[in-house]
């Protein structure tokens, strides 16, 4: 028997994949103010510049950050769209609970068992 973490659903969003890593989430947080370039960002983490650069590239591909030129500098900026992530996540939870409530409703109807319950429900449709 396999005991493991179930992998993501088929329509898994690259945004969530990018955010599944702690360092990348931290980069997204830091880049909200768009004050630092990749080099400055890299100084916060106990890893090589190249490794941080890779994380930044993943985030960039997912559309979570962009690199922006401010004067002579290139800073990393969190895409405001990314701030909509929370809303999208809540949307997914909504779907989860809607499915649960559908199952509850079915169960309640079954348990009631009475024909008139079914009729009441159907007359409302």
């Amino acid at each position: 028997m396999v005991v493991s973490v179930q992998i993501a659903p088929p329509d898994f969003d690259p945004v969530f994949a990018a955010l599944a890593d702690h360092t990348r989430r931290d980069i997204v947080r830091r880049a909200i103010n768009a004050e630092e370039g990749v080099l400055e960002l890299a100084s916060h983490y106990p890893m090589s510049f190249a490794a941080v650069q890779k994380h930044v590239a993943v985030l960039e591909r997912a559309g979570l950050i962009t690199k922006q030129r401010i004067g002579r500098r290139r800073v990393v900026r969190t895409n405001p769209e990314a701030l909509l992530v929370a809303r999208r996540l809540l949307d997914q939870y909504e779907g989860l609970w809607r499915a649960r409530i559908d199952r509850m409703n079915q169960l309640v109807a079954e348990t009631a068992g009475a024909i008139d319950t079914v009729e009441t429900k159907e007359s409302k449709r």
Partner: protein
Amino acid sequence: MTVTAVRKDPQRLTLIVEAEFDASVESIWQLWADPRKLERWWGPPTYPATFTKHDLTPGGRVESYMTGPAGDQPHGYWDVLEVEPPRRILFRAGFANADGTPNTEMPINTIRVGIEEVAQGRTRMSIEIVFPSTEAMEQVLAMGTEEGLSQAVSQIDAILAEETIQR
């Protein structure tokens, strides 16, 4: 449909879902209070839930696992904070390791359930879920335990269609 209201507050990381049922307060309460009923709706058909412990009292603990199509068994637990049968439950839900100990790597969210009569034989249930952080939501969803969602929805549609035919 049964769901009557959904409120999302991305700032407070809160989701509120309200639903109304043609059923008594007591029968909706039983969906939570009876573990055999609970396991019929908590997980989707592809991830049926089994509740191994169900102490729905203040300070009590509820433990469960779900079984996925590949035999994977994500475990979960609730720490029950407040209970007022048949109207109110407040609990913290988290993930557990296979031995039942809390998985501290995974986030905990707070769920508040309210059940009230709105008319004779008509009951409203409200569920408020508060997440500690966006990361927590991401993490839980990335786990996929919750729960091959699109798959679940299509299976439910199938069940509902069957039900209609039976009628």
